């Protein structure tokens, strides 16, 4: 089905043809105001395909859809580290980028820890068999990066080794000084991947993830924290100051999944309290990334685009338009949109219902039956799709129905699935062993932690604005030396986030704890936004009020737009939890 742009070009072509058929002289055309003085058809949309952008929209090379199989992401196994991890940074041995780990004595126990080494290095990565390998920077040389399974109550230490090219030799987009953020872990500042904590090529850094829930210093909850703050689907990605978009585009993204005794990762779990959501081969992370490719078939990063980058190739788990054979049973798909800037609204082509069970990676109070799920950049949402009653051989497409043509945000129009962009093809296959589908979708997951407005000790407003092409927050440009808010450890605050930037839309992300939306433009949020979140979608002129706590750790954290192109110049503020 033709897009609006294609229709415009066709209209333009027809209009030009009419002029030709009318056999008008140049003088006639000029008298009618249809020609410029240099003799070209004026750039009115009805007459010039050029104005409609058709000639000027660079397109990626053609790739055959539905021939690449969706990569299943293997779980990375822990391994022993050559150099034992310590609380203080081991500068003499080449570690950098942090101060001493907070809560080290409380959580570090060599007999109860998973340690991982991630080798961050260049990789020749193939997005599609019809394209040459692309020059990527990848965790463990793979894209998506390694998939880490973590469990509450069992801390993890991830040692990131920077084996990217040296600053002196690298040429091209990206800066080889990553700082890796676990989005959105309850993590101390020094392990949170702050934009300022970059590490140089040839150095390394231990990130300490206690895998503990928020509230663990609150006597009401015990050392494991508040179970209602359990998180599920997280991702880790680069966060280098001013170069985040470029580095993530180079391949710096991976999944980090958190389990506990309820969301246990075992659909056969004998614990009667376990949720028994689909697990194993049927718990499938899906990383969505839209990308552009140059005439040479390699990933193209437009360094001179400050609006946001919209790719014309949709990849899932690193392959362009893949297919996936699915068994006739329930699946848990962990959707993650890494952008850089595109907004997704995913429907199934046969219109069937799905169940959204989480938002921003956190299980909702209960599943929501729906036909679609929205994902801003950095959003995660888990959905259950049940193929049990679909005939074998049926092909169902995952379709993006959010119309968008530039980095400002979607137009707001939801396309019918027949006009949306197909991203992934499911093929139902009765020959795949369902393992009896013992999985369940409980009616209830966790209660939401209470919003106790009596805990609020401060109310702050952050107005995101754009003037004369530059971003500001509360009228000021970003300054790494400025702390824009000092919430006190153990308290809660109410923050009002306002989008004043006219025709632009922004997914605003706040590091550290998950927040709750109290109101969106004065009214209660819709059900899928009423749970625990960490990315707030702000449409034109929207105002969202949130409730957030600042527990357990100290230090600085950012708040920023997660259209990472905006983040990089520099739609961000730094705030700090103080005692």
């Amino acid at each position, binding site marked *: 089905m033709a897009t*609006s*742009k294609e229709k*415009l070009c066709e*209209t333009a072509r027809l*209009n030009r043809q*009419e*002029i030709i058929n*009318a*056999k*008008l002289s140049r003088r006639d055309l000029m008298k*009618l105001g*249809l020609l410029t003085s240099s003799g070209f058809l004026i750039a*009115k*949309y*009805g*007459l010039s395909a050029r*104005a*409609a*952008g058709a*000639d*000027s*929209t*660079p397109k990626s090379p053609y790739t055959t859809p539905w021939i690449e199989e969706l990569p299943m992401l293997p779980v990375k196994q822990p391994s022993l580290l050559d150099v034992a991890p310590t609380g203080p940074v081991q500068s003499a041995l080449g570690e950098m980028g942090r101060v001493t780990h907070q809560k080290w004595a409380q959580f570090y126990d060599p007999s109860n820890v998973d340690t991982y080494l991630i080798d961050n290095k260049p990789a020749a990565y193939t997005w599609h068999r019809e394209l040459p390998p692309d020059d990527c920077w990848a965790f463990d040389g793979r894209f998506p990066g390694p998939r880490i399974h973590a469990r509450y109550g069992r801390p993890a230490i991830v040692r990131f080794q920077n084996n990217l090219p040296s*600053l*002196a030799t*690298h*040429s*091209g987009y990206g*800066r080889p000084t990553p700082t890796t953020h676990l989005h959105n872990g309850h993590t101390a500042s020094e392990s949170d991947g702050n934009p300022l904590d970059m590490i*140089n090529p040839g150095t390394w850094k231990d990130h300490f993830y206690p895998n503990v829930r928020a509230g663990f210093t609150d006597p009401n909850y015990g050392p494991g924290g508040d179970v209602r703050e359990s998180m599920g689907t997280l991702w880790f990605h680069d966060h280098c100051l*001013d170069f985040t978009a470029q580095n993530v585009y180079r391949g710096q993204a991976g999944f980090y999944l958190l389990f506990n005794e309820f969301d246990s990762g075992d659909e056969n779990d004998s614990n009667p309290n376990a949720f028994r959501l689909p697990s194993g081969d049927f718990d499938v992370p899906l990383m969505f990334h839209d990308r552009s490719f*140059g*005439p*040479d078939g390699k990933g*193209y990063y*437009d*360094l*001179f*685009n*400050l*609006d*946001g980058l*919209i790719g014309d190739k949709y990849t899932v788990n690193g392959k362009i338009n893949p297919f996936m054979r699915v068994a006739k049973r329930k699946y848990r798909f962990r959707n993650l949109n890494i952008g850089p800037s595109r907004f997704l609204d995913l429907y199934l082509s046969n219109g069937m219902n799905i169940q959204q069970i989480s938002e921003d990676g956190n299980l909702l109070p209960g599943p929501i039956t729906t036909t679609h799920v929205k994902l801003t950049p950095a959003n995660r949402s888990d959905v259950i799709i049940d193929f049990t009653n679909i005939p074998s051989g049926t092909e169902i497409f995952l379709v993006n129905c959010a119309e968008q*043509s*530039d980095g*400002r945000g979607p137009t707001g129009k939801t396309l019918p699935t027949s006009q949306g962009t197909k991203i992934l093809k499911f093929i139902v296959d009765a020959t795949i062993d369902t393992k009896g589908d013992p999985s369940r979708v409980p009616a209830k997951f966790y209660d939401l932690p209470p919003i106790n407005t009596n805990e609020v000790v401060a109310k702050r407003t952050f107005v995101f604005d754009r003037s*004369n*092409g*530059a*971003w*500001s927050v509360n009228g000021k*440009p*970003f*300054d*790494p*030396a400025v702390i824009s808010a000092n919430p006190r450890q153990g308290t809660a605050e109410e923050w009002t986030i306002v989008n004043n930037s006219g*025709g632009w839309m922004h997914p605003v992300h706040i590091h550290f704890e998950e927040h709750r939306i109290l109101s969106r433009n004065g009214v209660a949020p819709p059900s899928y936004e009423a749970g625990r979140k960490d990315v707030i979608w702000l449409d034109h002129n929207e105002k969202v009020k949130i409730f957030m706590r600042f527990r357990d750790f100290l230090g600085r954290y950012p708040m920023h737009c997660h259209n990472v192109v905006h983040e*990089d*110049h*520099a739609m961000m503020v730094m705030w700090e939890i103080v005692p």
Partner: protein
Amino acid sequence: MDRRQLLMLMGLAPVAASVAPVASYLNKQAHPRKIRTTTGFHGDYFPNVVLRTQDGKRVRLYDDLLKGKSVLINFFYADCRDGICPVTTENLMRLQTLLGDRVGRDVFMYSFSLAPEQDTPERLKRYVKMHGVGPGWQFLTGSRDDMELCRVRLGFTDPDPEVDRKKGQHTAVVLMGNEPRQCWMASPAASRPGFLLEQLNRVAGVAS
């Protein structure tokens, strides 16, 4: 041309008008004068147009201003009434002070005119004198087409054509780049000069 043909042509107008509101939102991500380079962001990407400095000197954008250099670029115009350009110029002068004699030697500062027909070299010279801009920082003008091409290629655009049309909408951002390394990033022009210096040092490869 006969009346029938004229009427047929008149019939085109409503078509153009009806598509305009939809079209104004469509695809302004790729400006018509934008290109994709297959050889990196070097001579194929930056047009080698001839510009003139405030001293009347003729310079080529790529060969003379960018090639092999670390640069800081902004867009302005001398007759800027909304107050942004004078403030930006003052702020960048503070950065120039921090850079000292590195300007024009290790890093190069360029201000491109958004009103090249008014901003003749003489006018640029008066602007420089009035503000007390130090040496080594070049102000540039040229033909309208050439300056427009520079603006688009350097990314100082807005996806909304109505906004893009307005000169003042491109004045609050600075671009920093290291041409040989293809390292480019942007920052608000009103940023604290010390922070701009840190960013420029990183881009220029002076600091880690």
